[in-house]
């Protein structure tokens, strides 16, 4: 009985979130698109009709057909299968990159916004110095340093996006820290760590989650860009950007399907994350109350 009543507020919060989510069209569309991609990524071996690396030279550069819905590349590899497997890479990047960036960026932002003063100055100038590099250039450099692999790309992109999370978190933490309930918690004897974790971080979460979905989209684009530039996930693993890179050479000779389908995959996955992010921003503001 006692546990039942103490968990109730949390359950109520979850229910309220779901109710608001369902009412938000952007979020629902975004989540649906991403859901489809996720299913494709998880069940890639079942969905892909061919091995993504299997060459079949007699059927090279064939247009879309019943046997090859997205056509074939110059080695006769099935582009549909390659795009399906590419979803795995894209999703690993999209999920892991924000996590890596948050791991550092969120604590930095919390400390910066809550303590302010010199702590803020030092941490934010540090973030600015990362921000000063164009993200592609920084990603490129870091991958060059770490070496070309999926894990290293995720770490490199994670570092690229640390300042974004630090800034977003700092902004929210700064305003929440000035609020009466934080001061009241201090007067109740709560420690800084406790206040940050329980009374400041929850207010930053909505902004952080929205940022995470935007960064997920950016990470897909950036990974595709790195692959396009030839420093992405090493072949033969089929990154969408890598397919595009080779495919672009065949656009002028009429093999449009080579680059259009991976391109569309990038567009829709990025769109899905952006829509979800916009929807989440509307849903997740703790101050808008339960009747919104």
């Amino acid at each position: 009985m006692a546990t039942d009543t103490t968990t109730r507020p949390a359950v109520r919060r979850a229910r309220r979130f779901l109710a608001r989510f369902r009412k938000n069209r952007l979020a629902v569309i975004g989540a649906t698109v991403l859901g489809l991609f996720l299913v494709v990524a998880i069940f890639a071996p079942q969905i892909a009709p061919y091995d993504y690396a299997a060459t079949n030279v007699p059927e090279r550069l064939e247009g879309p057909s019943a046997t090859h819905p997205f056509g074939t590349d110059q080695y006769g590899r099935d582009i549909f299968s390659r795009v399906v497997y590419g979803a795995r890479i894209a999703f690993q990047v999209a999920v892991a990159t924000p996590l890596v960036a948050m791991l550092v960026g969120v604590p930095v932002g919390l400390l910066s916004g809550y303590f302010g003063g010199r702590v803020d100055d030092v941490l934010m100038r540090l973030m600015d110095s990362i921000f000063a590099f164009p993200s592609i250039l920084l990603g490129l450099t870091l991958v060059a340093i770490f070496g070309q692999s999926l894990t290293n790309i995720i770490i490199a992109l994670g570092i690229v996006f640390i300042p974004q999370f630090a800034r977003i978190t700092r902004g929210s933490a700064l305003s929440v820290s000035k609020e009466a309930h934080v001061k009241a918690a201090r007067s109740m004897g709560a420690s800084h760590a406790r206040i940050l974790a329980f009374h400041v971080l929850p207010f930053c979460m909505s902004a952080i989650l929205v940022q995470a979905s935007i960064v997920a989209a950016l990470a897909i684009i950036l990974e595709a860009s790195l692959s396009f530039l030839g420093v992405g996930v090493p072949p033969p693993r089929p990154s969408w950007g890598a397919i595009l890179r080779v495919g672009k050479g065949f656009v002028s000779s009429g093999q449009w399907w080579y680059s259009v389908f991976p391109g569309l995959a990038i567009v829709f996955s990025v769109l899905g994350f952006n829509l979800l992010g916009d929807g989440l921003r509307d849903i997740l503001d703790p101050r808008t109350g339960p009747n919104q």
Partner: protein
Amino acid sequence: MTRDDPSAASPLLSVRDLTTRFYTDAGVVSAVDGISYDLAAGDTLGIVGESGSGKSVSVRSIVGLIEEPGRIDAGTVHWKGTDLVGASDRDLRAIRGAEIGMVFQNAQAAFDPTYTVGEQLIEAVRAHRDLSKAAAREEAQALLEEVGIPNAAQNLDNYPHEYSGGMAQRAMIAMALAGEPELLIADEPTTGLDVSIQAQIIELFRRLVEEREMALILISHDLGVVSQVCERFLVMYAGRIAERGSREQLLTDPKHPYTQLFLESIPDVDTVDDLASIPGTPPNLLEPPSGCRFHPRCPKADRGLCDVDPPPEIDFEAGHAASCYVYTDDYDGPAEDVPTPEADR
């Protein structure tokens, strides 16, 4: 050095020459300037004064809740014998909420809107006492009942925004009681509440002080509010104590010109049409007036005396004292230039 209560051998709280300044970009603000007082266990002390007189800062200084760019520059705050000025955050935290509870104005904002009142009360109870979740919940419910919140069990699961202003203030008081404090500091607890709710909250304080035998510091700009609960008063003006004494001493025989004017400016039914006010505005604490900080607005100010050095504290009867030159031999009566609202500009 016993100032107020000669009978108290070792007071619960002993503040000496407390000076808190804010180092702002515009300059140094002396919010609290060398105040001293004692508080014995079970005492009820009211601190009254206009906004900006240093009431809040003086009590926040006690528990180390002064924020940047503020700093305690001098003085001591002895709580049960140990000096809290310069104490570590860890030591102060152990006192805050546990031995000294605090209640603020605008209680609704003092609750985190993302948790229910119950969750926060349980957190407060468990922060200071080693209780299981279920036991803490029972304790939280008992606290809500103690402060007079109806349907305590259901209201535990409500969010702060679902509480009315009066209920939120009661809940805030319950929160402050969670650590079973020996001293409760209430900073303008009734400001912003309507008059009938104010009276209920005042009544609640009276009952709690009696039942729990705890000391109370009640801060208000409203002498009426304070006089219903507190036995002893401090009147603050511009960061200094103008006058101190018992309720009877101050209400029937105020000595400091500021206290006298302060009392006259309280509206009552008969004087509603002709409300007295104190001429001038509270001083700018970036550049406080020399001498007695009230002299630019004081009808009894003696130029050449009151505007030179801070006035000495003159003792009258037991516990009643005022910092004013009027009661010294050097005083020659008010100067020719009667203060006008422009006098301190």
